[in-house]
């Protein structure tokens, strides 16, 4: 173990550590706590200059108000409309591409693999003008379909990297044995490999969900109106309208952060496995 386990130090040291960790946590999450508190602060507190103290009352009405006074429910719905198909699409496509690159030793295998990897790192701006143009031409501009199509394609790069490495680590004898039995390649994929990929599918699903939910750049490039914008772009435009109404901005922020945070808490182990790209086991 590094560092030395705290149990081996003096009782005083152990106490100090047990106090230091929560204190550090509160300091670390200070911006988040500030916003969470503000989201339940009555508007009158802000008017009286009580910005960072304890709220004089818990005003859950702020959360009601953002739903009644703004299209935030629609923004949230749009986010789901973009995110869910993207997760399904990118994971489905990359199960297949990952399988192809991990199992078959054809000549251009490595080139294609590294094309996926490299493409995944490029700056979004080099894609912006042509992708916007393509989306316009396909009649998908300013709709969740156009946004989801791009996200599926782009995320396939990252997902392929992940899936390919995962399948590569599976025992190859399984596949050889199935081939000897005369099982077709598709059946090997469907009945032998796919059932073993469940942890990888779970990891990628939560990760892609978070990435896409939090995407802001493509939302601003490919959507323009409130009936198609996801929550990130929506929140940014609401921020422009709610000048100095920080209790509303805060409530909106907390709401926007909620789905990925829940997802993370429910699927924590998978999430972290995904983030480390499987390289750091």
């Amino acid at each position: 173990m590094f560092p030395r386990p705290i149990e081996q130090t003096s009782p005083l040291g152990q106490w100090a550590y047990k106090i230091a960790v929560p204190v550090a946590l509160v300091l670390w999450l200070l911006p988040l706590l500030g916003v969470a508190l503000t989201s339940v602060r009555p508007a009158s507190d802000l008017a009286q200059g009580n910005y960072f103290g304890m709220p004089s009352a818990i005003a859950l009405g702020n959360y009601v108000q953002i739903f009644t006074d703004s299209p935030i429910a629609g923004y949230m719905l749009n986010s789901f409309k973009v995110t869910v198909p993207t997760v399904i699409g990118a994971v489905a496509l990359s199960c297949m591409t990952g399988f192809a690159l991990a199992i078959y030793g054809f000549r251009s295998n490595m080139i294609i693999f590294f094309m996926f990897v490299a493409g995944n790192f490029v700056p979004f701006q080099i894609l912006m003008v042509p992708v916007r143009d393509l989306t316009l031409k396909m009649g998908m501009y300013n709709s969740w379909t156009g946004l989801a199509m791009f996200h599926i394609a782009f995320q396939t790069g990252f997902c392929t990297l992940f899936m390919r490495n995962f399948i590569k680590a599976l025992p190859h004898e399984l596949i050889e044995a199935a081939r000897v039995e005369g099982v077709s390649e598709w059946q090997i994929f469907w009945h032998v490999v796919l059932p073993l990929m469940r942890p990888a599918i779970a990891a990628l699903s939560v990760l892609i969900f978070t990435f896409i939910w939090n995407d802001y750049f493509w939302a601003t490039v490919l959507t323009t109106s409130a009936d198609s914008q996801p929550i990130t772009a929506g929140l940014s435009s609401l921020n422009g309208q709610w000048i100095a109404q920080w209790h509303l901005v805060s409530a909106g922020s907390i709401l926007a952060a909620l789905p990925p945070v829940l997802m993370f808490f429910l699927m924590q182990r998978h999430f972290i496995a995904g983030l480390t790209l499987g390289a750091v086991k």
Partner: protein
Amino acid sequence: MANTVWKANQRSLAPWLFLAPGLIMFIVYVIIPIFQSMWISFYDWDGLGEKTWLGLANYAELLDDDAFYTSLKNNVIWLVLYMLALPAGLLIAIFLNQSIRGMRLYKSLFFFPFVISQVVVGLMFSWFYAPDFGLFYNLIESLTGQGIAILADDRFVTYGIIVAGLWPQIAYVMILYLTGLNNVAPDQVEAARLDGAKGWKMLWYVVLPQLRPATFIAVVVTVIGALRSFDLVSVMTDGGPYGSSRVLSFYMYEQALSEYGYRMGYGAAIAVVLFAIMMIFISGFIWKMWRDERGR
């Protein structure tokens, strides 16, 4: 007949059939657009009408564009300061790598900032920095007698945004190192401990070498994160004050798509420069990954 052809060639055709849907999507939406952007950067184009061939004129204009140099300079500052996420993340990981009760929950809470959208992070820090009542403003005021409106001051604005960006980035690096620390061989640490190694020496000579895979991924995601910075600049300052917090990704967007005029060609030229900078790093990463693959 078709059946026998399939049977004979199944093994060589199958990979291409599995690859086709994903590969086609990726080529159409990612690979081809890279080259299209390069092509567009030689034109004057408003996104709708006819394109006019300009040759290298867009690039020549960049060389005389102060806003371009400001963005480029800010990108360098981003890149350098973002690297602080590595030592900071490692420090927190070491601090948290204990097994007291409730540690799992603490670790996840420390990781929180990364899960939150950068738009929300940007709004949080704007509130933190807000002049007159912001917590940070008041802190500076009580220390020096004079508050600083970070986001309205062209001397500090970029640093203020970078701090906001470092918050989730440190959380990401921390989780990479926590996972890495979990796999440090305990016998080697114990052996080194018997030899009298501790503290910095232990970290530097025994632990860090074993954390190399984690460090590699941390460097990759931090470099990419620094050069991709767009959300925070857009949300917190919209490039201001007077364009002083622009970075290349934001400046490109501004030129190509905002009210400053639809200069797609000029925007594409900026994107090509950013791409070229990023390619230096990408080729390095790919080269290392390629070598590791070969060595397997």
